[in-house]
């Protein structure tokens, strides 16, 4: 099928078809119900008739007008040609192909436009935004990397670091993502449940922050966690989901 550029060049080289040829072509394409193909068929027919006319002019030494008439006679019945071409250019398949192509392009555009901000945000989080940077390293008195994975429905939460600082704050750092991709359109995971020490004492006060995107990193900071406690217990109990995780906190060092 000629491209628009090649069609232009054909138009430049070929002569304008005469009224008779135009009428013949019109009769043929009228029977082709897949409209987007009509233009290409018109060009092909016009080129074919013109070639035939030139050949007849050369071979039989006919005038332009007679040669064109003879060429049209050789083409046959316009209606029959049109019907045959319509079978070849099946309108049902043609339109299925035509509109499915448009839909693919539109969906691709929509996906790209929607994905770019999410991917940029997620990329920024993964590369540059780690809440561990909120905690000055020189203030660490103990630091463990539990690397514990919590599975909550389709959400995956990994407790990556637990850091206690000299002011007594215990910082729990975790990353999370949802296999259902709900963070793209719904809610992100804000809490990690309740925190206790090995004696069942609960810790509620504190602060926290989380990043946005497909992959989140979060920090939950608990105030005044005693230095003499050895274990942090994470408890999640809501909606029939129960998680209990015991994280040994290790030795306190550099605590003057």
């Amino acid at each position: 099928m000629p491209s628009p550029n090649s069609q232009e060049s054909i138009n430049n080289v070929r002569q304008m078809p005469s009224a008779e040829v135009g009428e013949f072509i019109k009769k043929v394409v009228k029977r082709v119900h897949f409209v987007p193909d009509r233009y290409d068929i018109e060009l092909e027919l016009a080129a074919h008739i013109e070639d035939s006319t030139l050949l007849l002019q050369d071979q039989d030494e006919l005038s332009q007008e007679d040669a064109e008439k003879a060429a049209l006679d050789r083409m046959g019945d316009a209606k029959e040609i049109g019907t045959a071409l319509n079978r070849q250019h099946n309108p049902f398949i043609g339109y299925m192909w035509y509109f499915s192509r448009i839909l693919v392009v539109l969906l691709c555009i929509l996906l790209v436009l929607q994905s770019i901000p999410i991917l940029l945000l997620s990329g920024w989080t993964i590369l540059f935004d780690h809440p561990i940077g909120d905690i000055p390293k020189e203030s660490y008195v103990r630091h463990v990397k539990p690397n514990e994975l919590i599975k909550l429905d389709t959400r995956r939460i990994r407790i990556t670091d637990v850091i206690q600082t000299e002011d007594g704050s215990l910082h729990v750092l975790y990353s999370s993502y949802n296999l259902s991709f709900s963070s793209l359109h719904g809610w992100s995971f804000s809490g990690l449940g309740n925190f206790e020490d090995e004696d069942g004492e609960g810790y509620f006060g504190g602060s926290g922050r989380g990043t946005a995107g497909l992959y989140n990193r979060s920090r939950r900071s608990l105030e005044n966690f005693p230095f003499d406690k050895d274990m942090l217990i994470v408890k999640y109990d809501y909606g029939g989901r129960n998680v209990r995780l015991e994280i040994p906190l290790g030795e306190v060092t550099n605590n003057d």
Partner: protein
Amino acid sequence: MTRSKKAIRNFLLIAVLLFLVMKLNGLYFSPVNALHASERDLHFGPSEIVHSFDHGNSRYFLTRYEDMISCSPIDRFLGVFWRYGAGHGTNNLKERPLFTSYRSREGDWLFYGIRNDASITRVEIEVLNAEGETLILSSDTFYENMFYIIWEGEIEDDALFSQVFVGLKAYDGKGAVVYDSDFII
């Protein structure tokens, strides 16, 4: 490649792309799937659907899960899709003859709850309209003990329910008041 093969290839591509677009936007073909998917992402449910009803562009689901109840709206989108976005459940306080909750959205007020006292046959709520007049709305239809009352709010969108709510009464079959409360929850 023939045109029919190209069309088949395009339809396969459309299926994949549509799946991704639906995932990106939280869209489902079924409102029940949208409800349960949003509950799952809240780590709640799947709840038992007691009753559903359409109001405006949304389908509301009266549901129960463990000791919680909820009435979550799922919005219709582009005619064929249902958009993710249900809410949490609220713990049913069984010591109350009638436990209720509410939500508002886009000018609609929804009042719903569960009867813990089986003798309750009618629930009546008094609310204020924009002119400050009291309206009495009631329901005597229960779906496995759950009920709802929905009405279009006449007070501005950002009004609090406490500004609208006047009182709540529940009656038994003989018309005696079983529960009377000036509080919402």
